[in-house]
């Protein structure tokens, strides 16, 4: 199993053709992704016709760009004309969206060959990809273990070399955590940096679109294609886009690296702790200054997140009612029973659980105690970050408290599953950017990711530090 970099994909296009490269990737997916191969189950649908048409345009020279001919996969919560969009849910089975997500449009305009749609937790709700209505994804680095979630298929497809890059989405950790579990690079851009037009919404104040890649330079390339204001997304930021690729050339010496003490407390796996400390030591050796910082509200991140995210989800998911798209229950004779039965049949248990929790938190008598309180805590969590960034340029911590767990290990206990996000939700609440970079393995050979967290719109500095972390791994090998 070899990962494919964007550079390698472009070299393959040059040596042969984009069409040949796309066919090779489809052959590999056919051989390894399905039940007759390793059963990784990362792809839910292949968009062969669209991919080969784009490959032909690249081969004829009609389409050029930084991703010309590069095979890329799309998480199945983003719309793409010609392919189903299920969001990992039965309730959208058979739905074919009539428009492209802006991220999809941008990738294709940059020359990308879009291979198909990738498995994920239902409506991006989960940390293991076991909540998909279309079966779990296996971690290509350890087939009996989860790839993380919710963008499990996106992380696995890059780790397995099925695609050179993929799109995922991150609401509470859904890019960074699976990237760490699968040993790939995953970037959570700043809130507003990448358009969400065409994203099936889970929690709109938190949802973000970002890339998975084999290395940090490729993440910079992907981000430079994806970032920018989109008139179709009012929440996209009207700010100039940095030169992310150019920024990688700058050395890290002199940068102040924040080390948040709350990210190194009880519950952190020993091997992960040692790997992160090794990263910090080496950054210091390269001339970075390590600065101890404190973010005292970190522990309230998970409870605040699960109030706010579920409250928003309960509202966003009300559109799935059997009227406009996807499933409609055949068991009903009236409108109200049609709504209820469609949602009963169409939603899986975790989605129902979160809709119930969110509806409860917003209901009369509980709004102030839960929803308003969680919004106030969100302010405090965000202030923690703003204050910390007065003393440092980026922060470093673990992505996950544990290495990838076994399939089925946490499925009976939703709260245990939620705690897998303990180091990722705070950045989600605060809207800052973050990334996971591979930094070695546990003694059992399981991937470890280190989280580099940058301030709002601080992607350039974050990627620079990410590159330094990656380079030190290669030197250590």
């Amino acid at each position, binding site marked *: 199993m070899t990962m494919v970099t964007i550079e390698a994909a472009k070299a393959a296009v040059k040596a042969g053709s984009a069409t040949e490269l796309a066919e090779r990737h489809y052959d590999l997916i056919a051989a390894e992704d399905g039940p007759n191969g390793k059963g990784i189950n990362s792809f839910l649908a292949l968009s062969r016709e669209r991919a080969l048409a784009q490959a032909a345009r690249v081969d004829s020279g009609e389409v050029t760009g930084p991703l010309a001919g590069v095979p890329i996969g799309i998480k199945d919560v983003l719309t793409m004309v010609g392919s189903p969009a299920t969001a990992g849910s039965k309730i959208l089975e058979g739905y074919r969206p009539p428009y492209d997500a802006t991220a999809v449009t941008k990738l294709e305009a940059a020359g990308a060959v879009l291979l198909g749609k990738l498995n994920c937790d239902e409506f991006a709700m989960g940390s293991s990809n076991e909540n998909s209505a279309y079966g779990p994804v296996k971690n290509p680095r350890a087939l009996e273990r989860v790839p993380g979630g919710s963008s499990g298929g996106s992380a696995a497809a890059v780790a397995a070399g099925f695609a050179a890059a993929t799109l995922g989405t991150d609401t509470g950790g859904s890019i960074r955590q699976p990237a760490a579990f699968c040993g790939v690079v995953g970037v959570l851009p700043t809130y507003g940096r990448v358009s969400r037009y065409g994203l099936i919404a889970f929690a709109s*104040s938190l949802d973000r679109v970002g890339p998975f890649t084999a290395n940090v330079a490729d993440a910079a390339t992907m981000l430079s294609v994806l970032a920018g204001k989109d008139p179709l997304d009012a929440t996209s930021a009207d700010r100039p886009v940095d030169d992310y690729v150019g920024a990688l050339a700058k050395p890290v010496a002199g940068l102040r690296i924040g080390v948040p003490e709350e990210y190194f407390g009880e519950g952190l796996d020993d091997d992960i702790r040692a790997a992160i400390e090794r990263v910090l030591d080496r950054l210091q050796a390269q001339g970075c200054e390590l600065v101890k910082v404190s973010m005292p509200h970190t522990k309230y991140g998970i409870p605040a997140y*699960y109030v706010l995210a579920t409250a928003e989800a309960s509202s966003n998911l009300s559109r799935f009612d059997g009227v406009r*798209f996807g499933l409609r229950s055949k068991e009903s004779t009236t*409108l109200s029973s049609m709504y209820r039965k469609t949602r009963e049949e169409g939603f899986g248990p975790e989605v129902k659980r979160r809709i119930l929790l969110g509806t*409860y938190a917003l209901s009369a008598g509980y709004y102030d105690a839960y929803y308003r309180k969680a919004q106030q805590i969100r302010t405090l969590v965000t202030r923690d970050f703003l204050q910390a960034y007065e003393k440092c340029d980026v922060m470093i911590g673990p992505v996950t408290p544990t290495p990838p767990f076994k399939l089925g290990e946490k499925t009976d206990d*939703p709260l245990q599953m939620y705690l897998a996000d303990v180091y990722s939700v705070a950045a989600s609440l605060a809207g800052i950017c973050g990334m996971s970079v591979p930094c070695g393995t546990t003694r059992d050979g399981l991937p470890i990711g280190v989280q580099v967290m940058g301030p709002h719109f601080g992607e350039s500095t974050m990627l620079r530090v990410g590159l330094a972390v990656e380079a030190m791994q290669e030197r250590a090998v």
Partner: protein
Amino acid sequence: MSAVSVEEVRRVAELANLELTAEEEPRMQHDLNAILDYIAQLSEVDTTDVEPMAQVGAMLGASTDFDGAALRADEVRASIDRRAVMAAAPESDGRFFKVPKVIER
């Protein structure tokens, strides 16, 4: 805060247009109580005079546009073909969504 009863689970399910099966109800009741117990730690934090935060934009100083100054020009633009939208519906006559009758007698 007191534990959520099975009646409350049913009431919230009704608010959310969900219909839980007899097997789902006790499971959801158990899970909701476990999660709400965990969430109760939010009450430890003194949030007197702390502004609630809906999303990060306001805190970054992005001005909230109440007078519409940042709206796009009001010009006619092509939108998605209605036929393509209606084709994705479970039941449609091509112009309207069809649903079961609304009023029961």
